[in-house]
């Protein structure tokens, strides 16, 4: 590793100011993703702004009207273990739980996770399905953006100079929604996902009232399958419906070829896993 400068501001405003002043600087929190790139020598930092000394940015709160708010510095482990998350958004707890291993989850922060813009990750898929919003803040103000609009491509986000993700918010899912996140790995269980499927269902007996289906880790940003969502409306999740969903997902997605599977394989996998996620969701996903 080459030498670089490290700033350790103790306030959000100072961190944002530092980033604005040094366009080449990069923020670091848990470091689980960035350090790999640095150690490999493909990213050579000149200045890193360590956010870990900033207090009060790891809170997880719930409000019946506005939903969940997770401070950007909350670790994936904090989220996974939060009683609030488990009660109101169990799918998010699951999507954080299946990331790598406890050592990684204990360091990785949710702000870093979404800011890194890596497509091979679990939490963004669940968060996009949940309609999550990111709070983007500078020293002087805050704007909000749907996570789906924030994620632009590999390592690319809508962050403006000086901006940091200060929190991730998830609106209250509303009554009667069930949810499930299903990860599939092609190697070790600690591997990054070859495909991740997040789904939400509002059922009326056997009939789907509303559905949301997002396929992650196969495209540069999580893919919401809106055609599948509308197809599901008013149908029951019988074998025929599920098979059609699988077909639609496979046909509708353009996966990236990578070391975790060929595009053709992932296309097929996405369909199968979408079926299974829906099944899991309808049978296990706790209704609220």
């Amino acid at each position, binding site marked *: 590793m080459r030498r670089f400068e490290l700033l350790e501001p103790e306030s959000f405003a100072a961190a944002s100011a530092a980033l604005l002043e040094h366009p080449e600087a*990069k923020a670091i929190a848990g470091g689980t993703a960035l350090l790999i790139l640095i150690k490999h020598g493909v990213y050579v930092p000149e200045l890193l702004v360590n956010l870990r000394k900033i207090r009060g940015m790891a809170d997880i709160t719930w409000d019946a009207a506005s939903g969940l708010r997770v401070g950007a510095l909350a670790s994936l482990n904090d989220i996974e273990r939060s009683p609030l998350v488990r009660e109101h958004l169990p799918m998010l707890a699951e999507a954080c739980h299946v990331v790598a291993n406890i050592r990684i989850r204990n360091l990785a922060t949710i702000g870093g996770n979404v800011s890194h813009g890596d497509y091979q990750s679990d939490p963004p898929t669940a968060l996009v399905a949940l309609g999550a919003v990111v709070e983007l803040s500078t020293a002087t103000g805050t704007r909000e953006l749907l996570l789906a609009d924030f994620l632009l491509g590999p390592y690319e986000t809508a962050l403006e100079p000086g901006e940091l993700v200060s929190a991730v918010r998830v609106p209250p899912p509303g009554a009667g929604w069930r949810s499930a996140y299903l990860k599939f790995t092609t190697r070790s269980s600690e591997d990054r996902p070859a495909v991740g499927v997040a789904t939400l269902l509002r059922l009326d007996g056997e009939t789907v009232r509303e559905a949301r289906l997002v396929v992650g880790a196969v495209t540069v940003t999580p893919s919401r399958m809106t055609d599948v969502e509308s197809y599901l409306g008013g149908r029951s999740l019988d074998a025929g419906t599920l098979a059609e969903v699988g077909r639609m997902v496979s046909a509708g997605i353009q996966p990236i070829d990578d070391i975790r599977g060929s595009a053709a394989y992932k296309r097929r996998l996405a369909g199968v896993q979408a079926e299974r996620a829906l099944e899991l969701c309808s049978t296990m996903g706790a209704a609220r």
Partner: protein
Amino acid sequence: MILEGQFTIPAPQDRVWSAIWDIPTLASWVPGCTSAAQVDATTYRAHLEQQVGFLKAAFDLLLTVVETQEPLLIRLHGEGEDRKIRSNIQAEITVKLEPAPDGTLLGYHIDVSVLGRLGALGFPLIQRKAKEIEAEFARRARAGLAGG
């Protein structure tokens, strides 16, 4: 990694040929490729900068014309190094032209190797980036030769 494809340029073959045979013009269709200049009869220098998010690579390229068959085919060998990230890029590039009903069909075949640290880590991203470059290359080629 092999990149190949073809697209039609709405221009006659001799015009397309003169454009691609002018290596700086050909290079200017590649996004991120700048300051292409001739060194001698068959070699050219160019600078290639690419960025995936905050990851950047900058290669000083040496391009060698390996074969030409006017107005059908040109083959180039390109190589360059980014010492900062200790990575190399190597490419064997073939561009073929043939007449098409609405202009000229340009076919390309590029065998590109990204070696060193970038190659070791960025495999899917490099592939992805290459696809973007391909699309932009076609767009610029068409735009550069359209109408005039």
